[in-house]
């Protein structure tokens, strides 16, 4: 049973721990005076971050866990401060005395540590990677994040769902449409309304366009990290073309504010022409790139995640599908009717993730063509009713999960689990047979979000 998320919320006298599995949900209550729970990490290694976060957020103690280090709170974070507790209302924090973080390290004759980050050499988001090296070979890697933690869960409490939207669409710039779709589904659940088919199509079109942009960017950056810059020039041109289309359709290059309950007419002919041209360009890119042996020499067998490990670590999205797990939130009747074909690879290496992205771009373009429709439906949203709501969306990285509790019309608890949150935890097992020079390549082939992970 796949673990999707594990999080806590504060009730009047207790904390409620919610564990969401594929097709099942478990609730457990613990007393606020002695909030002690047992770890799930023995069955699900990906529970570790969820549980460490729960301790930082609420002070819940995970009794039998082997990793009691803070996760979100870093060296200078004040001790015994749990910001998600309702009583915590401070707007600023005072830096506490520096308490060093103890990294997981392998020691031994000739083994040395390489610390990378949080600020990296390229134009990338901040995060820390701690390598234990035997010469060039990576023995171990610890991924440490949450430098970008903006306190979004707390920030959204007490707002209405409508007021929360500008923040939700800016949680992770690369996945903005996906975040907005999760928000949309929660709005619809709360207003007890169904989305007209034409709006469903428009939103699905934008989600696939976002996927095309993100995948094309990666299809350029992955070869670039193997020293093949020409691919970046080619693919970044295509990504820019797609981003400009996003601007035409949503008046924003990243689609911020793009998901609304109003449809606007699209000129079908130029749009179909655009899709046809892009399909042609992607095919040209594919024929060219598949024929460069020195590139595939770097891609094949690099950063392998076996099917068994991919299951064990509850991975999702591109990473999971490249390791042979057939899982995609788009596997629904609606998508299947519009030409969805689940891409999947079995290699689990950089090559598999690269080929999977290519296949998905082609499928997304084909679906976009099927989603096109001339329509100007508008929809009025009724009053939102209180309750607990959950939604899922397949972002360009993988399955996105959002849960919102609404009480008296306002957000009581906001939870979001970016696909990156689980996939980051599987990164270190991908690189145990590789050299450190392969790390950027492996990292880019997964292309996980830091902002969505850190919240």
């Amino acid at each position, binding site marked *: 049973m796949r673990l999707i998320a594990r999080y806590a919320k504060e009730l009047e006298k207790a904390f409620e721990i919610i564990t969401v599995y594929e097709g099942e949900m478990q609730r457990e209550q613990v007393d606020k005076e002695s909030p002690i729970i047992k770890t799930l990490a023995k069955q699900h290694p990906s529970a570790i971050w969820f549980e460490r976060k729960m301790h930082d957020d609420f002070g819940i103690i995970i009794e039998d866990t082997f990793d009691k280090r803070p996760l979100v709170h870093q060296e200078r*974070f004040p001790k015994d401060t749990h910001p998600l507790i309702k009583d915590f209302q401070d707007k600023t*924090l005072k830096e506490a005395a520096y308490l060093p973080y103890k990294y997981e390290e392998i020691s031994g004759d000739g083994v040395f540590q390489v610390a990378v980050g949080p600020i990296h050499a390229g134009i990338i988001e901040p995060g820390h990677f701690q390598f234990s090296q035997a010469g060039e070979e990576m023995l171990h890697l610890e991924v440490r994040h949450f430098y970008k933690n903006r306190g979004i869960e707390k920030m959204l409490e007490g707002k209405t769902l409508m007021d929360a939207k500008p923040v939700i669409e800016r949680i992770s710039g690369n996945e903005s449409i996906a975040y907005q779709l999760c928000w949309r589904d929660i709005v619809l659940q709360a207003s007890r309304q169904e989305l007209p088919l034409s709006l469903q199509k428009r939103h699905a079109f934008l989600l696939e366009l976002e996927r095309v942009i993100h995948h094309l960017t990666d299809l350029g950056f992955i070869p670039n990290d193997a020293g093949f810059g020409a691919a970046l020039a080619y693919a970044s041109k295509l990504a820019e073309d797609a981003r400009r289309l996003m601007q035409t359709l949503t008046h924003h290059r990243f689609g911020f504010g793009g998901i609304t309950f109003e449809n606007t007419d699209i000129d079908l002919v130029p749009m179909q022409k655009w899709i046809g041209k892009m399909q042609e360009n992607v095919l040209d890119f594919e024929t060219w790139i598949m024929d460069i042996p020195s590139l595939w020499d770097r891609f094949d067998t690099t950063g392998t995640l076996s099917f068994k490990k991919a299951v064990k670590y509850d991975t999702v999205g591109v990473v999971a599908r490249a390791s042979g797990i057939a899982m995609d939130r788009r596997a629904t009747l609606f998508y299947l009717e519009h030409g969805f074909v689940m891409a999947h690879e079995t290699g689990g290496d950089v090559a598999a993730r690269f080929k999977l992205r290519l296949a998905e771009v082609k499928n997304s373009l084909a679906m976009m063509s099927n989603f096109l429709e001339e329509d100007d439906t508008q929809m009025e949203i009724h009053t939102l009713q209180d309750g607990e709501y959950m939604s899922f969306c397949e972002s360009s990285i993988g399955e996105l999960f959002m849960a919102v509790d609404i009480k008296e019309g306002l957000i009581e608890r906001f939870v979001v689990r970016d696909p990156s949150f689980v996939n980051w935890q599987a990164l270190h097992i991908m690189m145990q047979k590789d050299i450190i020079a392969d790390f950027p390549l492996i990292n880019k082939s997964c292309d996980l*979000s830091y*902002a969505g992970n850190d919240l």
Partner: protein
Amino acid sequence: MIQFWNKRIKLGILTENPEHDEAFKLIQKEIKERVKKKFAGSLAIRMVDSGSCNACEAECNALSNPYYDLERLGIYFVASPRHADVMLLSGLMTFNMTPHVFDAYRQMPEPKWIITLGECPAMKSPFENSFAINAPAEDHLPITHHIPGCPPEPKEIIEGLLAFLRKI
């Protein structure tokens, strides 16, 4: 491979906005005397993300795609603050990133400047001040210039950089 070269020749040069070349030539001439020693004819930027949504970074990456090709103007992104004239700061200055931003700034050789990029470091994005956010950046660091936008488009970033060069 032959297909690729055929296509390459057919496509030609895609770079847009040649007016930037002209503007830059003018500015270069204008400020040549003052920055000759400081910049040696080119401007090195260290991008630091202090807690953004990654859209500003994506737009900075887009600056090197064939349409914008920023490096033709002699402006380029460097891998270390020690190589940089300018820090391009995006994001909300999160509590966790603040000490690292200071660190990067300390490592930059004098003379140095900071340009803030996007609404976040100016605290104008829809995010609200919370315990985890230290923005606006100007409360903590000397900011010379601000490039607004959420995120600013690549063209706006280039124009913002030119505006900065006019300022100093």
